[in-house]
């Protein structure tokens, strides 16, 4: 049950292997990895700058992770979120959930991503060759996050 906020890259396979070692009866592992997209509506992206709120970010990630553990039967669970400047195809975020059966791991990972999108204080700024623009929050993400409370 770990949360990491860091500038440096991560290796999903190493993180997951360490988690599996510590699990009593793992049967299902779901991972989500978010990458920087190189092409957005405005055009070809040069980089993405990820700003966050140190201190509050960690608290919020721990909150969503705790909520997932309450709702599903998880043997282990991990969130790693990077900040700083990132190039296209670089990794931004990793969520990994380990459970005995697949539905717990799938639902928890999906929930974690939806909540993280609306609860974790990160802001993305897109850097193009001809300027920059702040990514706007999507109503669809708010909607998805709310769905989990029905």
């Amino acid at each position, binding site marked *: 049950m770990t949360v990491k906020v860091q500038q440096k890259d991560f290796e999903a396979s190493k993180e997951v292997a360490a988690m599996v070692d510590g699990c009593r009866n793992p049967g299902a592992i779901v991972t989500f990895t978010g990458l920087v997209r190189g092409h957005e509506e405005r055009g070809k992206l040069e980089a993405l700058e990820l700003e966050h709120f140190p201190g509050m970010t960690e608290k919020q990630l721990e909150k969503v992770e705790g909520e997932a553990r309450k709702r599903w039967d998880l043997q282990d669970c991990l969130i790693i979120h990077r900040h700083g400047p990132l190039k296209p195809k670089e990794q931004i975020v990793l969520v990994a959930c380990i459970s005995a059966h697949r539905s717990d791991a799938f639902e928890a990972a999906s929930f974690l991503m939806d909540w993280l999108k609306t609860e974790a*204080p990160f802001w993305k700024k897109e850097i193009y060759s001809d300027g920059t623009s702040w990514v706007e*929050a999507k109503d669809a993400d708010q909607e998805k996050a709310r769905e989990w409370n029905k």
Partner: protein
Amino acid sequence: MNLLYFAWVRERIGKDQERVSPPDAVKTISDLGDWLCTRGENYVHALEDRKKIRVALNQVFVSWDQEVFKDDEVAFFPPVTGG
């Protein structure tokens, strides 16, 4: 009172942090926003559309009508876009 600004709120105000001593009439975060807007165009530009600004009191999301006290930390920022 310690104020923090992030993302385009930070860019529009022109600083990421400041200590302020608002007058006693400032009871809520909404009052605080009104008072900040009297201090310059940069605050108006950053904070005028409150539907687009989220606030956190001592690192917890709160609404604009939340009460504030002099030792509080208040953060203003756009809706988050992590993940």
